[in-house]
């Protein structure tokens, strides 16, 4: 049992969870800024305890013993941490929960409790066992990293509190759930399944890569380190193990270092490691001059030390089903294509909305684990209860070819005068033909105009558009349909029903 301090930041928990589930949008300004703020916050905490661990879900963990003695007790330490973490370096107040308890699992639960009560929660060693007993079984999955299927089954067995699970006994749990059962029993009986003071790291797996030319971009560094990561993870997998905690060290030409311990109870994949490196770098490589700790030179070295590996038996996704042979093949060949350089590969991600061009966005495939079938399905199904059909959306069927940059067209009436849309959403005169790129097509039928008003409440960002479908006579044979949009009195060709 290691007395542990856990600090949770809900703001970043959701963010990192989104990334892990493949729901991320990489490359946006917001993403980098978010990770940079988190990195700054973690660096503040290292002022209290030098070696902290960042768990996969925006949670910071470290051993309580040293800092607690230094500050004069757990209560004082908790209050101090709460104050230190209250305000982010950019001056905004950050919601946080500080929990200290006799085991890591209990401290995580205490931190959640602290979050809802808005003051730190300290559970003494004597009360830790009682505290765990009272926790609901679902906490094993949410806070303890136990597989959802196991937690679900425990729930269906009628076990609601951790106390009842503990009463089953270690033997019965191992019998039924194998390695996971042993972890469950460890959690509910207050033993740590993840040790904060790790033994000597398995140095065999450590890998590093040096660059002759210092690298200055986040993307470039991640790309350059990718093959090293893949080789290392393949070596670990070759020993039938998987890495659950990993130290990532980045060094610059001027001997500045960024060290971070990353943890993921479900085990890292090569893509996960690259995503963590991406996060660590985007927090550190700041060029706005505001951060005194920002590096002053390019990156020449990236090192990875797998601090903790465990037997990859039960939690290996392969055995829980879902991975297929051609998924692995596809992922490999995408990696090969990306290695050529100058290539962007995207996977569709459902965004919703009424604009056919932006209903689907493309997430960067190099930062998505293609073989994670669950994440892939979540990516393409509606998120957060967004309705599949939006009011004001284009009627089914949708256009098959969308212009990336809609070209200007002219919609004219029988006299050759421009047709526009009135304030009552009507054509000024019936359209007779449309001029597209030098050719003039006869309009046979028109549908619309359908008005679209976006952000009508915001005078600066509001947009008024009108869309219309026109049936035109094809110059070669038959008929074709075009989707036009009018904005600020000019028509453009949004899409073709190709």
């Amino acid at each position, binding site marked *: 049992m290691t007395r542990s301090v856990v600090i949770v930041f809900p703001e970043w928990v959701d963010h990192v969870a989104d990334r892990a589930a493949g729901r991320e949008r990489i490359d946006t300004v917001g993403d980098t800024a978010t990770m940079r703020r988190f990195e700054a916050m973690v660096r503040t905490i290292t002022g209290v305890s030098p070696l902290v661990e960042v768990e996969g879900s925006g949670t910071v963990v470290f051993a309580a013993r040293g800092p607690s003695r230094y500050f004069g007790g757990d209560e004082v330490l908790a209050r101090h941490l709460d104050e230190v973490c209250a305000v982010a370096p950019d001056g905004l107040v950050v919601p946080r929960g500080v929990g200290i308890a006799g085991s890591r699992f209990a401290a995580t639960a205490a931190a959640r409790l602290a979050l809802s009560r808005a003051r730190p929660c300290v559970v003494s060693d004597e009360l830790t066992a009682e505290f765990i007993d009272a926790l609901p079984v679902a906490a094993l999955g949410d806070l303890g990293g136990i597989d959802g299927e196991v937690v679900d089954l425990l729930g269906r067995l009628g076990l609601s509190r951790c106390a009842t699970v503990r009463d089953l006994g270690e033997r019965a749990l191992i019998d039924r759930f194998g390695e996971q059962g042993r972890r469950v029993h460890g959690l509910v009986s207050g033993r740590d399944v993840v040790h904060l003071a790790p033994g000597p790291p398995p140095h065999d797996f450590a890998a590093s890569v040096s660059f002759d030319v210092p690298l200055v971009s986040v993307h470039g560094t991640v790309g350059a380190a990718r093959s090293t990561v893949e080789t290392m993870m393949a070596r670990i997998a070759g020993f039938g193990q998987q890495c659950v905690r990993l130290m990532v060290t980045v060094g610059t030409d001027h001997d500045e270092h960024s060290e971070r311990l990353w943890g993921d109870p479900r085990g890292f994949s090569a893509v996960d490691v690259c995503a963590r490196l991406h996060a660590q770098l985007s927090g550190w490589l700041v060029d706005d001059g505001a951060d005194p700790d920002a590096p002053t030179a390019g990156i020449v070295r990236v090192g990875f030390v797998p601090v903790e590996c465990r037997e990859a038996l039960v939690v290996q996704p392969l055995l829980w089903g879902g991975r297929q042979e051609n998924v692995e093949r596809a992922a490999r060949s995408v990696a090969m294509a990306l290695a050529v350089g100058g290539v962007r590969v995207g996977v569709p991600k459902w965004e919703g909305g009424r604009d056919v061009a932006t209903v689907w966005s493309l997430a960067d495939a190099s930062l998505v684990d293609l073989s994670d079938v669950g994440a892939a399905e979540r990516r393409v199904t509606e998120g957060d209860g967004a309705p599949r059909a939006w009011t004001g959306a284009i009627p089914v069927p949708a256009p098959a070819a969308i212009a990336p940059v809609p070209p200007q067209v002219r919609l004219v009436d029988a006299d050759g005068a421009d047709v526009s849309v009135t304030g009552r959403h009507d054509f000024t005169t019936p359209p007779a033909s449309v001029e597209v790129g030098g050719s003039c097509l006869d309009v046979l039928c028109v*549908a619309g105009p359908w008005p679209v008003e976006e952000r009508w409440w915001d005078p600066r960002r509001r947009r008024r558009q009108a869309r219309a479908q026109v049936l035109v006579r094809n110059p070669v044979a038959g008929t074709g349909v075009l989707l036009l949009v009018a904005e600020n009195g000019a028509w453009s060709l949004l899409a073709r029903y190709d």
Partner: protein
Amino acid sequence: MGQARVHRGLPRIEGTETAAALAERLATRASTGAGVVPVHEVLAGLFPSGGLERGQIYGIRGGASMSLLYALVADATRDGAWFAMVDMPRAGLVAAEQYGVAMHRLLCAGVGEDSAWGSVVGALVDGIDLVATASPRCTPAESRRIAARARASGTVLIVVGAPGGFEIDATLSVVAQRWQFDAHAVSREVTVQCSGRRIHPGRSTAAHLPDPHGRLGPVPP
């Protein structure tokens, strides 16, 4: 005998391929040259083997090319095949979904102007079951190499528009299209034709592309 015992002893793991299954698959591919990727029953009549033959290169020419592409690959992607579109920024993904393409097995690649187009497509052809591209940018020698890699890995390569340096085995084209327009565009009746070296001339079929639900549908006689 001994083999049978081994089979009983080892539980089958969902989603993995045993060495025996792999050997069988490779042997089938070597003996028949390919294997067939299933297509929608409306289009199956266009192909001598009832579907897209693995390792072959298909072309799509003329109008309705994007709709035809989605309709061709939709069934295969739902059966587990991966589909990559290379350099097709015009692709309407809403329409792709309506045609029934499994969006979680779709990849959209964009190759930069000064990047090695042939190497990128070659790498994709190695592992993706269906690769479609528009306006190929490669030399005839490169295109022959890509075609050889497609044959080796059993990938169906589809070239939309001008074939560039590729030797197309069969070309699909929409020869007539007529829209039903009723308050808005509802459906389109097309005639799809297939031509190629080994294909009997005049193979054609009528279809709704799309039908009122945005899918491929039959035309009632």
